């Protein structure tokens, strides 16, 4: 299925993966590392496993970035 991941269209196999499965496919080692926006709405972390993606979905992985000072 075609997903728009971080602004780029990608073909993801198999179809109908969950957000958790997509994170694995995209080698995001830990779901705690990202905040996920699906079609403009933020997903709650406990819902990653139960949220099924469908073709055309627009998904953004937002990474924590803590640096700045020291």
């Amino acid at each position, binding site marked *: 299925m075609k997903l728009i991941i971080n602004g780029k269209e990608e073909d993801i196999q198999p179809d109908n993966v969950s957000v958790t499965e997509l994170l694995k496919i995209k080698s995001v080692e830990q779901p705690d590392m990202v905040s996920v926006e699906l079609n403009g709405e933020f997903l709650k972390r406990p819902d990653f496993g139960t949220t099924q993606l469908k073709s055309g979905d627009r998904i953004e992985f937002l990474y*924590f970035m803590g640096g700045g000072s020291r």
Partner: protein
Amino acid sequence: MELTQEQIVRYSRHIMLKEVGGEGQKKILQSKVLIIGAGGLGAPVALYLAAAGVGTLGIVDADVVDLTNLQRQVIHATPDVGKPKVQSAQETINQINPDVKVITYQTLFKAENALAILGDYDFVVDGTDNFPAKFLINDACVMANKPFSHGGILRFDGQTMTVLPGKSACYRCVFNEMPPAGVVPTCSQAGVLGAVAGILGTIQAAETLKYILGYDDAGNRHACSLLTDRLLIMNAKSMQFREVRFKKNPDCPVCGAHPSINRLADYEQKACELKREA
């Protein structure tokens, strides 16, 4: 206030911008900005805001200048090693622009002093290097209704957003709660290209000046839009910028409809305790 002859000359390149003009420059001279962290991000922010003539610059940092800082913290120089960062920053700012009054806070920004330090500043810049501070700054600014700029950098990456509490999405709307300790590295563990701090910091400085110059409820004025309700993400390896748009999150624990965070707390997480990244 009236601009002196010297100020008219010093700020002439601002004044000739129709979006700034003499009136805008006066606003800048009368503004008060708090910079939390005088490091990689805080350094360029402080340098540009000092040069721009921000009337009062508050700087919060508990650390002293270390040799490893000089690769990116451009407000400090080699003879400053060992000096408190706030003092080193103050000395540099005084040399750049005598119009700027510097107030130093050589302390950590903590739950107990956060609201007192925020005081009557017009705008706050988050230049800190750890998540407990970033979440505390967000919560304190939301509670005190202080607009602020969030910034974060790591390796070749950076991200920034501007928050107008009550009007636009806050940091927690996007990043609900702190990542567990050790999951996300910080610069001191993972490194950062010094110039990335400069890119992000100067964006934060520009947002600060745009805010001071004024905005309407839609975030627009003089054709300037603040970086609200969107996170600007940059990667210096590919030198690409992208932005992710969003709205205020109704489930946000601090600015949502039913906030679960009603008081400030110091979050426990040692930013520097990550095992070495592969």
